[in-house]
């Protein structure tokens, strides 16, 4: 186990540097000269050359990459093209907290709704409730949020009129419900499916039969033996859940007017604000890799039967 963790810990920085390299290379070679983008109409060659030298853009590619990494590690991700004079890390920093709260709300919702739904399907294994739930999870897991958002908007805002459609007021504000629901639905579906399969598998174990044989009530059997063991695999998908949350957030935050990093990212995509695009990608990829590392290692502690070799 020690060797496994060590290997993962050594591989992670390599992985992150490669991710950063791809991101940097795409931002470097893709859109063309950043100075020309920055200086659109001022095409005085002397000025352009001076700005280029000032920003170190006349250096070789690998040197620039090194400088970018060095700066990124200290939290300096360059300057936005669109918002002149504003640092990318400043722009992102202000919005991360908002997105994190929204993501947490969606995640909580997925777990709170997903596990009971999965349990219901497992209890009615093979019957219509089970087939219905499985089909529904297939549908909802695959649907991108820009499909579910309009339907939910129509339902809750236009017809029922019980939820506000727009805006942001923090974690404990009713305005978080709609976006969290939209964002959490794929998670609900995924967790429901995972827990259904996991519970069905655990129900067939010998220790469940033993628990029943020794006269435990059904409640106790489920609470103590089935659910506890069945929930372990759910933990592993939480890392992957982060991926759907992030791409979902880009859309959901735009739809519902939430000032998070997803909203910032889509603005950057539309205005070709490359430093922000790169920083967003890098930040998300780092968060994702680290989250999966934590999950993989944490899993080992939750379930000592797992061997990584």
């Amino acid at each position, binding site marked *: 186990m020690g060797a496994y963790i060590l290997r993962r810990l050594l591989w992670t920085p390599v992985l992150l540097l490669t991710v950063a390299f791809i991101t940097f290379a795409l931002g470097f070679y893709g859109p063309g000269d950043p100075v020309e983008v920055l200086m659109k109409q001022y095409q005085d060659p002397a000025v352009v050359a001076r700005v280029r030298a000032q920003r170190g853009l006349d250096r070789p590619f690998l040197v620039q990459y090194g400088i970018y990494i060095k700066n990124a590690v200290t939290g300096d991700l360059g300057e936005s093209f669109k918002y002149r004079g504003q640092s990318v890390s400043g722009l992102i920093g202000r919005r991360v907290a908002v997105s994190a709260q929204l993501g947490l709300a969606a995640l909580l919702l997925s777990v709170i709704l997903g596990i009971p739904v999965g349990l219901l399907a497992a209890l009615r294994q093979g019957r219509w409730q089970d087939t219905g739930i499985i089909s529904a999870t297939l549908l909802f897991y*695959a649907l991108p949020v820009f499909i579910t958002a309009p*339907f939910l908007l129509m339902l809750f805002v236009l017809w029922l009129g019980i939820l506000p459609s727009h805006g942001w007021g923090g974690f404990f504000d009713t305005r978080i419900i709609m976006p969290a629901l939209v964002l959490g639905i794929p998670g609900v579906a995924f967790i429901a499916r995972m827990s259904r399969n996991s519970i069905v598998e655990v129900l067939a174990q010998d220790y469940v039969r033993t628990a029943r044989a020794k006269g435990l009530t059904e409640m106790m059997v489920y609470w103590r033996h089935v659910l506890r063991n069945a929930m372990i695999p759910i933990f592993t998908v939480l890392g992957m859940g982060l991926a759907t949350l992030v791409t979902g957030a880009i859309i959901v935050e735009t739809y519902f007017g939430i000032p998070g990093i997803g909203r910032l990212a889509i603005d950057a995509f*539309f205005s070709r604000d490359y430093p922000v695009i790169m920083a967003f*990608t890098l930040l998300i990829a780092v968060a994702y890799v680290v989250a999966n590392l934590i999950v993989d290692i944490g899993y080992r502690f939750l379930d000592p039967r797992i061997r990584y070799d």
Partner: protein
Amino acid sequence: MVSFRKKKTAAPKGRSLWVYAARRFARSKKGMVCLAIIVLLYGAGIFAPLAAPQHYDQQNLGITLRPPSADHPFGTDRLGRDMFSRIIYGIRTTVIVTTAAMVTGGLLLGLALGLISGYFGRWADNLIMRVGEVFLAFPDILLVILIAATLKPRVTEWVLNMEATTGISGVARSGFVDYLVVFGALAVVSWVGMARVVRGQVLSLKQSQYIMAARALGASNGRIIVHHIFPNLLPPIIVLVSVGMGSIAGAEVMLSWLGLGVQPPVPSLGAMIFDNGDISILRTTPYLLLFPVATVAIIIFAFNLLGDALNDALNPRAR
């Protein structure tokens, strides 16, 4: 394959796994309905100029924002364009992109790299799998978005240069660059999942006795791969292609929703959803949003359920 085995299980002569799988699939209502939906929608997309009553860009300012009627089953938009026709042309974009990305990225690249990785192992396996991990480190379709966002100017430039040197003109203006960037970005990313599954299958197949027997009889690597490994890879590949088409379709719609896909006036479902995504439109003319949204939902759902039905038919013991 081995004749005495068939006698032992008393299976009637000439019925392969495929015949049984096809029968099981034909009995599955879910699978047949989904297949019919996909054939219908993809057929409409491929033959869009025939299937659509109007050209996607034909405006009629006398009949703007009309609700669905016999003449315009999905209504008309702000410029009086027939939404039904626009959606069919939007499906065409999805058809082109999903097919191109799946064939090049998933099938060619994914299959080849998975085979190399699983069959030859060693450093090739290590290299391919590590590269795959790097791709997987970008959550979901973030890398696709990044590639599409950054590389377009370069590809446009490149196509324009080609036009200048070869004397062919109009390629850049035809929207070809958009298709190239979108499907290229999707293809670059979609090989990883396929390669991993293929690799896993090959690794377990390599341990099987009939492959050892083939090797003992002196069969070459090429013969083993083509005759013994490839046919056994097909069931998981078929399932993966179906599910993968659904997710590529979703990714394509997301890209055009972000404005990074095929550019107007060429219609795409994502752009239609974005243009009509406002709550005020939902209040006044909801059909403008609901028909494109429902189309995308049906495409994605049909591919996923089809994958599920194919899986049941091809791996009957999995459940």
